[in-house]
C-alpha cells in the first residue's frame, strides 16, 4: 500500500506519546492501548487522505476512548441496577511508570473531561489556538479551561504533598 513507510514511521515515532495522551484522558494502560489501536487502524485505512496525522490520530483515539468509557458507564449502571457488585480492576499505572508519575497522571485524570483533554493536548505541545481548532471551541474557552485545570492541579498537588505551600508566596 502507498504510504506504508510513512505510516510505519509515524507509529514508531508517535506510539508512546499517543498512548500516554489517552491515559491522561482517564484510560487505564490497556484501555489506552485499545483506543490507540482502534485509531491507528482507522488511520491506516484513510492514511492517504490524512493531512495532519498527529492531530487526526489523537482525536480519533480520544473519541475511541470516550466512546468506550461511555459504554462502560452504561454497563456498570445496568449491572448496579440489577443488584450486581462490580470491582474495578486496577489499571497498573504505578507498575508501569512509578508512584510519583502515576500520582500526577491520576490527578490529571480526575479533572473534568474537557479540562483533561485540553491539558493532555497542551502537554503534547499544542498551542491554545490549535486546540481550539481541533476541539471546535473558542480560543478563550480553551485558555479558561487551561487556567482552571492548572489551578485545580496545583490544589490537588498540595493535597498529595507534592507542592510546597511556602513556595506559593
Amino acid at each position, binding site marked *: 500500500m502507498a504510504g506504508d513507510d510513512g505510516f510505519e514511521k509515524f*507509529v514508531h515515532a508517535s*506510539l508512546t506519546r499517543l498512548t500516554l495522551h489517552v491515559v491522561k484522558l482517564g484510560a487505564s494502560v*490497556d484501555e489506552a492501548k*485499545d483506543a490507540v489501536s482502534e485509531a491507528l*487502524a482507522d488511520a491506516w485505512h484513510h492514511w492517504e487522505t490524512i493531512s495532519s496525522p498527529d492531530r487526526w490520530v489523537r482525536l480519533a483515539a480520544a473519541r475511541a476512548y470516550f466512546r468506550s468509557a461511555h459504554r462502560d458507564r*452504561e454497563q456498570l449502571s445496568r449491572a448496579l441496577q440489577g443488584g450486581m457488585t462490580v470491582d474495578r480492576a486496577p489499571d497498573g499505572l504505578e507498575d*508501569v511508570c512509578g508512584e510519583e508519575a502515576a500520582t500526577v497522571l491520576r490527578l490529571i485524570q480526575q479533572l473534568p473531561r474537557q479540562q483533561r483533554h485540553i491539558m493532555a493536548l497542551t502537554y503534547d505541545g499544542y498551542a491554545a489556538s490549535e486546540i481550539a481548532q481541533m476541539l*471546535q471551541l473558542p480560543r478563550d474557552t480553551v485558555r479558561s479551561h487551561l487556567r482552571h485545570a492548572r489551578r485545580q492541579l496545583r490544589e490537588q498537588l498540595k493535597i498529595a504533598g507534592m507542592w510546597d505551600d511556602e513556595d506559593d508566596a
Partner: protein
Amino acid sequence: MTKMTRDQLPGPDSDRLDALLHTADEAAEAAFAQQMDPQEFLARARHGLVNASKLAPRHASASAYGQDDLPGPRQDSTEPTEWVRRLSPMEKALLERLASGSTVSAAATAEFLSLRTANRRIAELRRRAGVTTTRELVGIYRARR
C-alpha cells in the same frame, strides 16, 4: 512538535508547575516507551485494513474532527437482523472466529484484542441483537451472514 511553551502558561507558579508536570510526563513517557511494541500496533492496524477491504465500510473515522459530544448507543432496530449488516470490520471478524468454532479467548488473540475488549464487544453485540447468550448471537450471525 515541541513541548508546551512558557507563553501558554502565564502566572507566578507556572515554572514550578510545568517542571513538576513535565518531570512526571517524561518519567511516564520513558516507562511507556519500554512497554510499547510498535510492530504489534502496526500488525493490529494492518489487520483491521485486511478486514475492512472485504467488509462493509466504517464511518467512525469520518467524524474524528467532529463535535465533542459523546455518541449514544447505536440504533439498529429497523429490522431484527439489521445489526448484522452494520457490523464493523472488527466486530465481523470476531463473529467469524466464533462462528468457526473459536473460543472468545482464541478469537481475541487472533484479532489482536485483549480478552476484556473482546468480551466487551461481544456483550455490545448481544445487546444490539437482543439476545442474552453468545451462542444465540453466533447462531443468528451464521444464519444471516
